[in-house]
């Protein structure tokens, strides 16, 4: 079993959720998105991000608008759609359940009252 592979798979599983949660907070430019994720210590390659964004956009979860830029070609800023919001809601619920389950399983003796406060990435 390759430890790196497992690690990256674990990361990848929540990648989409993280990206959507950032976009939900407001219009965002992909490279800024990468920066914010980096600052939260979650690394992603831009080469991975673009296809993901395109797929999400094609699925109707995101939309974008062009913004003129003075340092190169016009930039694509991504925003969340209504559909994206409900999709995100589903993901968030799943994440809560998952985090609870993982928490309960990995720390079985920890007290059960703090289940409401789970860390956000």
């Amino acid at each position: 079993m390759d430890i790196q592979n497992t690690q990256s798979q674990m990361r990848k599983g929540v990648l989409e959720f993280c990206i959507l949660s950032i976009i939900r907070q407001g219009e965002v430019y992909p490279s800024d998105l990468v920066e914010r994720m980096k600052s939260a210590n979650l690394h992603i390659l831009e080469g991975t991000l673009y296809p993901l964004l395109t797929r999400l956009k094609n699925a109707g979860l995101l939309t974008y608008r062009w913004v003129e830029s003075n340092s190169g070609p016009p930039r694509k800023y991504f925003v969340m759609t209504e559909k994206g919001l409900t999709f995100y809601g589903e993901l968030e619920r799943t994440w809560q359940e998952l985090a609870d389950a993982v928490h309960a399983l990995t720390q079985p003796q920890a007290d059960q009252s703090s289940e409401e406060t789970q860390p956000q990435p």
Partner: protein
Amino acid sequence: MIPIEESAYDMLKQYVESLRRFFANEEGRDEIINDIEGRIAELFGESLKKGSTCITDEEVNKIIESMGRPEDFEGEEGKVHSQLGGDDKQEQGSSAYESAGAPPRGRLFRDESDKILGGVCGGLANYLRVDPTIVRLVFALISFGAGTGILLYILLWVILPSKSLQHTSSTKRLYRNPEEKVIAGVASGIASYFNIAVWIPRLIFAFPLVIGIITSIFKSAFWFDVDPFPGIVFGSFGGTLFVVYAVLWAVIPEAKSASEKLEMRGEKVDLNTIKNTIQEDLEGFKTRAEKWGGEFKDKAQQFGQEFGQTVGQKGQQFGSEAGSAIKRGGSRIGRAIGILFKAFFLFIAGIIAFALLVALLAMIVAGVGVFPLKNFFLEGFWQSFLAWSTLLLFLGVPVVAFITWVIRRIMGVKSGNRYLGFTFGGLWFIGLVCGGLLAASIARDFDARARDKQDYTIVQPASGKLIVNVPDAKVKVYGRWFKMDGILNISDDSLFLNNVRLRIVKSNDSLFHISSYKYSNGADEVSALHNVKEINYGINQQDSLIYLDRGFSLLRGTKFRNQSVTVNLQVPVGKRIVIKEAVSRRLNSFHISTGRNDWDFDEDWNNDYGWSSDVEYIMTVGGLERVNKNDTIENNDDGENSAVEKYKKSKEELQKEYDKKQKEAEDLKKELDKPVDSTKYHYQKTVSYSQAPHAPKAPEAARAIAAEEVSASSEASRIIFMQMVL
């Protein structure tokens, strides 16, 4: 825009290309690539703003690192993909082979990453280190040739293991060049493959067509045989090249991406590279042969046990692969069919364009040919002027434009000049207007029509029989001139028309009479009559022979106004007439028509029925009849004529024929009863079959026809028209 080092640029190109390949099966591939390229451009811009003068390798490397190489997101992609629920379009079918790693050199595989059907050609090409296109072409050729190619292909497909092979990009590949194309970029692709100027392969492809055009122009100019297409287009050489072009179009891939374009122009493939490749292979062959020898021994042992099993597996694998190949092949074939259709339509369009061109050229040539004729058509300065304008502008301009276009396409001149088109269009429109004015003006000159009658005195033949003949024309006729109704020949100072028709009617008295009716059009009655008077048509007699002129001449100064002559020959009842075969031989068509005994025979040349030359006819009260009935059987061997002939016959004659036929039938019956050898029997049998049915039918037919006969003959005396269109 952005200064970049050449090596850095190549690196970037390769990177983008690798991305493109990685996202090959992504739906939004182009969008993703565009986004990434946009981002890279932005990063370049930032770096330039910081003060660097040029993008270096280092900077490109840095950017690539931050963007990530395809290898870096290989694993995660699949994961994210399946998580999203998207269908995984990556080829999974033979992942077992793919995971085996880099292929050992010199083993023959099917190429998983470069395939149209099963990757056999791609693998072979990789093994031989040649362009896959060439291998595919060879396969296509032997498949077309004997069909063995297909078998061989299937065999190799089953036998060879498949593997995603790495491609050395150093070799040059044959692509179609989409940037420089006339039809599909085949010629320019070939040109860049062989490092030659584009117009050379183009000319090679176009050459038969050019030759065809030229020959057809000459042909049409000298023989007026404007039907050059089968010869050119379907002629062996031009046709073959066309097929070759279509095949190349289908087989050669289009250079879409930058790296493909680089490959297209890439390192020159020369004999040395091929020699080196072969040498390398041969050296390796010995060791491989030894290794294989050992392998083979083991394998042979295993083989016995595993054979059944393996065949089953292979079969299954092949089945599933073939299934997906059929799907993929289906789309390929669909595309190929699409291409073929495209080629076909281009072909048709080409033929149409070409036909128009040749027609125009022929018309110009003909126009020049008509030049001496124009004096007979045109009146005054304005008509000449309009005629020339029409000729030059309406017909000439499209030809010039087309030739210009072809030359520009072949030389690869990209036209930014719209004025050329406007100029051609404008000139052509002027030509069109001129043509219209000319047609209207000429049509006005044909408004009125006049007729004049001229009687000829003839000596009544002592034998009571008149023989009509047409002597050789005074003017030697060469080739086929215009098939314009009745113009036979022109020279500078005269126009020879043969708009002459012959009509035979019953005489009112006991004498032969010959008269001619001359017709002409004109702008008004007076000028039409004037034109009529100009017609000089001669009829000569030698004893019982009547010679009709083959036509009549219009002298210079007289205009062509649809002049025509109808010769009216009156034959008294009981007298005979023979139309010499020479009359019909020199005619394009030879009709005899019935008509009413009014004089409107200018229009009424209907219902020709059987008329035999060199046969004596006699004028009866009911019309012309054959003198010798036996002639009917001898001459009228085609069914339609004999049927019409019968219609003409009176009851007695039919009765006579019926008796005769019956006698014949009886004779044949008698002969049938005789014992005969087999060959003769066959012959007789057919004869009796064709003759016998006549016998019982004849009485009914005779009655029916007789009834009609009575009403018809009482109506009017029969008139027989003979049309002479020489």
